[in-house]
């Protein structure tokens, strides 16, 4: 039984090794903030951090996640204090339907860890999440705001 460390807590999940991390998180651990959009690493809705690295959990087997530190959107602000990115998201009123936004926020949070002041080109290269509502203009503004906060 793989042991997953998610948001600082250990979970022993009854999962076959090949089950995608996404479905272990959603269905076995019960955290539904991480979304399913495509299942083939195209859209980024399922992005979580695995040892700090933005990872598309729909295409990442649970066996590879065991023993690593996994952070989901629910664990981004563990004590309820929103991160700079979440605050910027609120201030810029970024989400429309919001379904892509957990993944978007996780991808952006990872980017700001490696590039605290990303240029537009850095953003273009690193943020490849799909948003069918088309919130990109607000996303870009909010990334810069978070970087400068």
């Amino acid at each position, binding site marked *: 039984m793989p042991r997953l460390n998610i948001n600082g807590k250990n979970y022993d999940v009854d999962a076959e090794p090949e089950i995608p991390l996404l479905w272990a998180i959603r269905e076995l651990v019960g955290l539904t903030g991480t979304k399913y959009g495509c299942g083939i690493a195209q859209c980024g809705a399922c992005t979580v951090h695995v040892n700090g690295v933005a990872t598309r959990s729909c295409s990442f087997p649970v066996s590879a996640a065991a023993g690593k530190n996994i952070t989901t959107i629910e664990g981004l602000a563990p004590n309820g204090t929103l991160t700079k990115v979440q605050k910027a998201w609120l201030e810029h009123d970024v989400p429309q339907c919001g379904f892509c936004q957990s993944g978007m926020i996780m991808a952006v949070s990872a980017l700001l860890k490696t590039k605290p002041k990303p240029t537009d080109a850095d953003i273009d290269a690193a943020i490849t999440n*799909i948003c*069918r509502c088309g919130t990109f203009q607000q996303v870009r503004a909010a990334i810069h705001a978070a970087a400068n906060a």
Partner: protein
Amino acid sequence: MNYVPKINRRSFVAGTAAVGGGLALGLDFLPSGPKVVRAADGSPEIGVWVVIRPDDVVVVRVARSEMGQGSLTGLAQLVAEELECDWSKVTTEYPTPGQSLARKRAWGDFSTGGSRGIRESHQYVREGGAAARMMLIQAAADMWKVPAAEVTAAKSVLTHAKSSRKTTYGKVAEAAAKLEVPKNVALKDPKDWKIAGKPLKRLDTAEKVNGKMIYGMDVKLPGMLNAAVKASPVHGGKVKSFDAAKVANMKGVVKVVQVADNAVAVIADTWWHAKSALDDLKIEWDPGEGGKVSSATIADILKEGLTAEKAFIGNQNGDIKAAIAGAAKKVEAVYAYPYQNHACMEPMNATVLWTPDKCEVWTGTQNGEAAFAATIAASGLPANKCDVHKIMLGGGFGRRGRADYVAQAVLIAKQMPGTPIKMIWSREEDMAQGSFHPITQCKMVGTFDDKNNLTGLHMRISGQSILAGIAPQRLNPDGSDGATFQGLNPNGETAFGYTVPNLLIDHAMRNTHVTPGFWRGVNVNHNAIYLETFMDELAAAAGQDPLEFRRKLMANHPKHLGVLNAVADRIGWKKPAPKGVYRGLSQMMAFGSYVAGAAEVSVTGNKIKIHRIVAATDPGHAVNPAQIERQVAGSFVYGLSALFYGECTVKNGAIEQTNFHDYNSLRIAEMPKVEAIVMPSGGFWGGVGEPTILVAAPAVLNAYAAATGKRVRSFPLKNHNLAMA
């Protein structure tokens, strides 16, 4: 609105309030006078639209659905404006269609499509807010024994100035709830608005940044199982056979069931197990007649329609035949626009608990009442034993206005009485079972006299009718589909914006077995490309500037012209563009609003860089300009994704594209800078979510032609080896 995800069996059985956007309603029967209706927490209703809690929190009821477009916030603004309440204490909740029916449709129409959410309910929701304010004022006046006319209301505080007394809405709510709801209420002049008309932030953002917002896919019920489903890949096909035994022993699998005559579902402990088993399940299909159809055969049928004798007329004046016969110059062009899938970020899903005497559904739907009707029909139970709890939608764009997926989930759950079943479509199923943007071709003919005046225009659209496919009861008596002429009608909310002496716009209806649907913007997506890029072709043929050419034809259409002039001014049409940058224009009216666009692009090899798009909207009244700006930019992402990448093709009757790798969507790197001009001219209520989508594609195509001299007339652009830079 706040959905409470953690529920126990008892509260679930006891009432629906804890488990949906729904309200649990209690009734206090008073010895005389009207009864008080209470929300789940016991707070009284002040009329059907408003609940006021003792702590002054105002709960606004919203019947239309929130799918990202922001009308949940906009509708609350309208109610709050008339209510004169403290905006910082406003929250919202959804009534259920079952509750609405039980109260004689107290909340009116639930449907949320056609950019209608606000423009078709602003009157009665504002009246609801105003009536509640009057009741609160009356209650305070009664308490103080003063005339109501001496009591004023502002920011949830009631004041009697003469005696310097004050109280709050929460304190008089109980008394107000016992009063009759006034019938004749006066509404504010929009110029006096303080909450409506302002660029306020959305009410539903906090839970969208911390993962707490519950979408249909996130619903959890005690003892719930999960279902994955596959319907005939050829629409109209049927299940011939399937080998359930092969997967029955796979991990987690509980049951394999047929759903209606066209689908098979696997029910399992988790959705992943259900899907994995379904992927392994061998299903034999009878594709029916549709199995012989391909994109090429559809194209042939549409092509025939371009020159067919008979067609439905949408707009006509003068004598186009004579104009063509006597033309000094004639310009012709043929266009084609493909099928598109909505590809909502959240694939279709619904959760259902069916028992022999109750059927409850939790789902994201754009039309609670349509989902309710589908539930009643599929469940085999009477209306008073069914209900639908609306959950936040992970996108709608028109797709969730249909309730096919709700009916399917009910039919699955019915085979597991007493067990809640969450049915989720895989992305692949969502791609296969779309309600596709209709496919069309178009032949445009323009005629000139010897002085280069446009004398005639014939626009022949050949293609699929959405209404014929999914709502035949809404076809006109002659069988025509009025919606096909969006943006092209002689008048009304989608009026044609040009005056041409001899005009004929007609539609040769050519339907296929592929299910069509309302796709954000609907028929204006292709109508605007056809008309507005051809307008540029005509301007070029006449040797005239595209703006001046249009202006000459728009003298009788001042509001159309108003938005066009606004974008031309903002983009600097009269001034030269930066080196290597080219411009294009477009305009049309749709969903009651006037819209125009101006794009700046540069072209390097086969890469098109869109630097900037300016879009102007005149929606009459703008309820929330900040959200309108977001809808404009968002609609461009949707429209440009379709222009550059989007195409659903048909092979052996089935849609070939299966996921985002072959049905691509624009990313942040490709996002142009969008400048939205919101210019409400007052006096009418136009829609917002959809109209501007139509301006992006033609403006970009016209700019591309200005840059290269090349006209592209079939889409998407990837088929011409053109990409977004």
